[in-house]
């Protein structure tokens, strides 16, 4: 009797499981895994964008922070997750830098990309006491006193690549500006304010309050257009430096996620990204939208990775663990 009941139960359950894919995706909340801690740029962008998404899909988007090892813990968690489209990763180019520098053995190609949406502008700032407030000034000062100036970066991390991209394009030799390994926007900003450090690569949003208060001066914003938060600050382009290096947040699904699920997600993500209300919300956090999905996305991701690899090769960032 018992066994029989169990059997019918099992059959019913099986039927249910079999029927599940037939139901419209998504039929339960979607988890969006943020690889960094609450309050940081990644987290804020994900939370704001998740609210936008909820306007365009009938499900909840649960933002979940899994931190550690510069995002690797979360990346591996999503990479190895059940490929059903209910667990997604909110990553930036840091993931690709892991492979380019030999810290990890995978990059964006280990995932099924959904869409790249939010972009956070990055910039190069300097401690106000240094008197450096433009690319021209920077070049002149460095040429006059090579080795006298410093730049703080988390080695082989995003800030390092952004700094290298800028210095490379500006034609400032990395031999003339000493690189100081230091992590965290705040640590770098404090050191620059105190005058211990000259140059700080950091997110515009993080530096803006200190630029307002006169503790930091901005050298260049590494974006195509000026950042609305610091409207006065010239971009690199405007100063003749062809360096654009915003932090692009891209949503990834596990590799084997069914194509129709990925395209459903991409549609929703693109709709949210192009929603003016959403863009206004993001702008409050000094973030912009630079959206792409499908074939265009593959192209963009390949381009971004190519530049990262170029920089890694040029500045010999691969041999650190040697």
């Amino acid at each position, binding site marked *: 009797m018992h066994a029989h009941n169990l059997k019918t139960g099992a059959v019913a359950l099986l039927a249910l499981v079999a029927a599940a894919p037939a139901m419209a995706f998504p039929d339960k909340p979607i988890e969006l895994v943020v690889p960094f*801690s*609450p*309050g*940081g740029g990644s*987290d804020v962008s994900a939370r704001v964008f998740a609210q936008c998404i909820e306007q365009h899909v009938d499900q909840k988007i649960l933002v*979940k*922070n*899994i*931190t*550690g*090892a*510069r995002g*690797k*813990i979360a990346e*591996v*968690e999503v990479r190895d997750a059940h490929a059903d489209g209910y667990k997604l990763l909110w990553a930036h180019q840091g993931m690709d830098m892991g492979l380019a*520098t030999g*810290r990890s053995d995978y990059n964006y190609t280990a995932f099924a990309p959904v869409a790249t949406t939010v972009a956070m502008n990055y910039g190069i700032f300097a401690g106000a006491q240094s008197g450096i407030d433009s690319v021209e000034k920077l070049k002149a000062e460095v040429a006059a006193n090579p080795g006298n100036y*410093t730049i703080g970066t*988390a*080695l*082989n*991390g995003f800030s*390092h690549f952004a700094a290298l991209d800028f210095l490379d394009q500006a034609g400032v030799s990395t031999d003339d500006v*000493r690189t*100081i*390994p*230091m*992590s*965290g926007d*705040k*640590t770098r900003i*404090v*050191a620059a304010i*105190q005058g*211990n*450090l000259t140059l700080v690569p950091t997110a515009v949003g993080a530096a803006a*309050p200190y630029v307002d208060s006169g503790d930091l001066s901005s050298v260049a914003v590494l974006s195509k257009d000026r950042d609305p938060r610091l409207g006065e600050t010239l971009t690199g382009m405007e100063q003749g430096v062809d360096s654009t290096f915003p932090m692009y947040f891209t949503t990834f699904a596990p590799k084997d996620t069914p194509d129709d699920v990925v395209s459903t997600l991409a549609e929703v993500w693109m709709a949210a990204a192009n929603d003016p209300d959403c863009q206004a919300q993001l702008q409050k956090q000094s973030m912009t939208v630079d959206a792409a999905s499908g074939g265009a996305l593959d192209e963009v991701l390949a381009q971004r990775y190519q530049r990262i690899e170029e920089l890694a090769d040029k500045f010999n960032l691969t041999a*650190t*663990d040697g």
Partner: protein
Amino acid sequence: MYDLMLVGASHVFQPWTLLAIMCGVAGGLVIGSIPGLTSTMAIALMVPLTYAMDLEFALPLLMGVYCGAISGGLVGAILLNIPGTPASAGTCLDGYPMAAKGQATRALALAVYSSMIGGTLSGLALVLIAPLLAKVALSFGPWEYFALVVFTFSCISAMTAKGRAVKAFMAAFIGLALALVGLDEASGQTRLTFGFTAFESGFYELPALIGLFAISQLLADTDDIGQKGKVLKIDFQLRTFLGTFREVMSRKRDLLRSSFIGVIIGILPGVGPGLSNIVAYSQAKRASKTPEKFGTGELPESVMSPEAANNASMGGALIPMLTLGIPGDASTLMMLGAFMLHGIDPGPLLFRDHGDLIWVIFIAFFVAFAFCTVIYHFFIPLTMKAISVPRQYVIPVLLILCTVGCYSLNNRMFDVYCFLGFGLLGYFLHIARVPVLPVILGLILGPMAEEQLSLALAFGQGSVLPFVTRPISGTILLVAVLSLVLPPLLGRFRAKTAIDPA
């Protein structure tokens, strides 16, 4: 400053926030009064619960728990002769004899009122000193921070019981070694991961902290299952309780001395209420005209001094935690973890950029003490129930809460395994009578020391001279060296002078 204060006040004086502080205080009181459950444990249980809350709500709640848990220890100390937390060890000495003489209400009232006064005084010290120190600390470079960490480690010898200094240092080095595991954020190198990706994140402070303190404590508590502590019967009279306030106020000098000792010891890194109550008790005895009556439960100041001091240490311990990010004791360590969990980095910048949050903390601190006192007037019978709950019901519930909490902190099972692993480590250390706090200090301050040292060397182009030539870091390092070298030298000198006359 006043506008920030008003903003802070407007955040705290919201009905729900006030309720949160009250619940925090009540919860802290109950947990703190159960012998064996420390204030660290109380905060450990609450931190994961506050995870999803707004900051303006979570901080007052945590402050409530912190205040409630530290002062909760006095009930067990007086009625059970077992201190609920180490912070109340000194309260047992005279509080229990007084209660045993049938003056339980008087003993409790003395302790409660002096707690309140000590706490309020330390709150004032916090409000006055912290912003000044934060201003000075804004100019602290890596040299000063490294010197501070060195100083903290030198304090480890001061805070451990006599003869355990070597064990304490051993524990600190265990912590330092564990801190090496994982990815170094600044240089991008991974260390000691043995090829496991999970290890690359290193060990998180909170699961380690909760494991080391909570599991070892709870396992040790299982020894007490079946033993019934003798709870003194008390005939609680609110009028006698209120009347004792005048007696407390007649001992202003003892209150001031003990509070001062409490604040100063609280500010020193690594030591806190656990030490200050004993020191205040012995100083009160030294200053007394009738030291022979200490321990008999007759004198009011013998109950008041340790209680005023342990609460005074709380405000003191918050000063270095908020201004420098260096915790004063285990409970502030836990608070530090909680702050970081909410995305706040305690440090001088916190005062500059988030003045309103600072005032939320300050005001919540005072409000928590006010609630604490009010609650004591009416809920002493309730806390008496709490201290007599059989241990076998408490332990499993707390273990489950801790486990769930550790998972929710970072949403992964690895942290739960860490929590259990650190718990075992803590239990073994407990058996070997090795203090646990230095392990955690090593784990938290190790990376800080490394980061600041390498930064200092990078800025100074490899020169170690600035450590000595920069005035603040030089002074701190000198004090650190003296605190290590002087006590044994003095001891030898005293031994010599003691022998010579003979």
